[in-house]
């Protein structure tokens, strides 16, 4: 397996608890669906390398808990992210209503040029659907961002969504790179003031 790549993008999965963020990630990276997945606590990531226009792109996709109170980590989590997948559950209108809050969250914490996309997950469950495709599309249009309905379970649109997001980021990055060749900085946990703690004492260099 060739491990080299041309680009590394840090992507985030966000959205309410239980909308299927972890399942989407699992589908993308393992092409499988687990009925026994467990709520995410803390922070985790998985990697998938894709090829676009002959370039290898390594997607480092971060997954965290949906519940606000479980998220000790938000700022560091957002830092350095080049793309965000904002997920709601089509069978849960509350998770859709919360998209607005999540977008505010992104505006607050993520870098201003982050690429965002809205995913309406669980599109295979039609009998319990509460949010129509049109409603989802309309909201995304209002915000001027891309939208897709996905099903991690039935493997619908998951790859497509990540390819589309990666393509947008790549286009943007290429443009930036052309103007400022050294501008891209992509660090997960940037330097914090605490990092001086090499030894717990003052005066240590």
């Amino acid at each position, binding site marked *: 397996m060739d491990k080299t790549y041309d680009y590394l993008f840090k992507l985030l999965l966000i959205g309410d608890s239980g909308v299927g963020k972890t399942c989407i990630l699992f589908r993308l990276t393992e092409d499988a669906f687990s009925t026994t997945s467990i709520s995410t606590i803390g922070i985790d990531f998985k990697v998938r390398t894709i090829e676009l226009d002959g370039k290898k792109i390594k997607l*480092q996709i971060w997954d965290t808990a949906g519940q606000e109170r479980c998220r000790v980590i938000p700022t560091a989590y957002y830092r350095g992210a080049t793309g965000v997948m904002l997920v709601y559950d089509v069978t849960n209108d509350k998770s859709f209503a919360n998209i607005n809050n999540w977008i505010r969250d992104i505006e607050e914490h993520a870098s201003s040029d982050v690429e965002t996309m809205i995913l309406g997950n669980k599109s295979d469950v039609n009998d319990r659907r509460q949010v129509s495709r049109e409603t989802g599309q309309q909201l995304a249009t209002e915000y001027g961002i891309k939208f897709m309905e996905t099903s991690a379970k039935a493997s619908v649109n998951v790859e497509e969504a990540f390819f589309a997001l990666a393509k947008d980021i790549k286009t943007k990055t290429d443009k930036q*790179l052309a103007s400022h060749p050294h501008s891209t900085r992509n660090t997960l946990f940037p330097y914090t003031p605490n990092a001086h703690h090499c030894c717990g004492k003052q005066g240590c260099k």
Partner: protein
Amino acid sequence: MSETVRFVASAGNRGNGDPNEAPAAEEMHEFITFQRQLSRPTDHYRPNRLVPGEGNPYAPPPKASHTSHTYLSKFLRDPIATSLNSFSKVTNYVTSPTFYDEEYLSSLPALHLLRPPGYAERVNRSSRSPTPGDNEHPVIDPMTTSNNFNVVNTVPLPPPALPPIPCTQPQCRLPALTLQEFEDTSAELSIDDIIERIFRGGLNDNDFRHRLWPLVLGLTEEVTEFDWSALSDLYDKYHSQWNSILPDQEMRFTAYRERKSLIERDVIRCDRSHAFYKGTSDNLEKLRALLLTYTMYDFDTGYVQGMSDLASPLLYVMDGNGTNFEMSQSSIKFQLEMLWKLIELTDPCFAQYLANKESTNCYFAFRWIVCQFKREFMKSESDEYNDCLILWESIWTSHIVRKFGHKSDDTTSTASQLLTCDTNTTEPQTKTMIGGHEKINKSLSTGALNSNTIDVPDVKFRNGPHMRSNSFRTKSERREPPKTPTKKESLSSVPKTPEKHLTDAELYSLSICLSIIRRERDLIMAQQLDATEILKHFNTLQLKSDLENILLHASHIWYWLTHDSGESLLYKSEQPANEPTEDFDLLCDSMPDEDYYIINASNI
């Protein structure tokens, strides 16, 4: 094994291939096996001091000496002499390997083999850049590029030796307590002895747990059957509160509806591979009821993700209901900060390493703390709860064990189950009780205890036969000769320590975190993992097979913290250190001189 082969191939590609390839592979395999065998924690204790030797059934196997390991084994055998020699270089070598002289490097014959699986990838990547034609694709990966410096110097360095925990009393782990042993011995043992026994071994079966958990959790100090009826009634009251909410009422009760929906979403995905929760089991409904009842007990806390993790094994044992969970962002944050300080204090080299890798936030320990290590200790084929319960039992009993060493000072122990799940179960009310207990603790820690704020269940609890008052001990209190602080006394000490302190259960949990971190630190440094890789490493860690070693080492850390002034060092390091030598002096007082370097090293 396929990793091994891949590595050999990549070495060959780089032009190093020679007829010795096969022996090299073998040697490397041996070396890695050797490395893995270092049963971390205890291995790093110097035999003459801390390991009593015989007697400990969990002591690591003796290491076979191997000529090619000279430097590393020297390090491990005699870290002081070896490390003092090289400590001055430590900082450099974490940051810039180039400072290493030839002589030093050549003394590491086997170290180029210290490439755990995955390392070959790194070598590939770096060896790739000089190849002509590679420049046609810009490699946009600052995370790697910033590391290129290290990567280019591909001679891996041995991780600096793990400094031992200066714990003055050997600790041990015992087999789980059985009902038989309990019945044979309980007549002669005090409650504290029994609790210490549980701390060191846990309980061996669930019926037995059912019987002794009330004791373990501080609900009683009797070893006789616990009377659950009062707690049961209380539970039923809370249960009926949510159970009687009418559907239309629920429509107008958003706060409740949201909590309920969150619970329902988590219950259906909690431990579904465990036999107890498989399929469409009634137990899922019980778990849901338990969590909803807890919500009514503590509506402000409500439900926080992760509670279901704590509740599910408890329900499994008690097959009834009950759990408690206290979690606030600030508490977790504080614990992560303290964990970082603990690493700094006990392992400055690794702390430096983490700082270089921008990992001082210790996020990798977040889930350990929130779920009390449950996910780490049940991730195996069997999905059994047993290991996790043994670990929890040690957490629940840690505050009592703390006072050993000056046993005479009676039963005043700090009880604090904050964050640990307390439980109970058939009578979930226990949880309520313990919940009240937490409140006491909490208010204590903020220095604002007002017993009037404690609500009914608490009062009941406090009037119980044996309540453990929570004393928030100050260092001096602890060090004083036996004395029985009354509740008043311990309260009065609160204003003297206005800073935030960890509860005993939290501090002990951090001991377990540290124990796990110390187990992994060699691998992490040897592989030069970066921030994301460190997180990944800890997130995917399989710990189950090593529970006893981890707890054994945690008990060393715990003893050191509570009896060898580790805790005061920890809190001391919180304040700006104006007199840089103070920690050092403090340690000198209580430690044999060979331990100097631990603290000393931080001055380098």
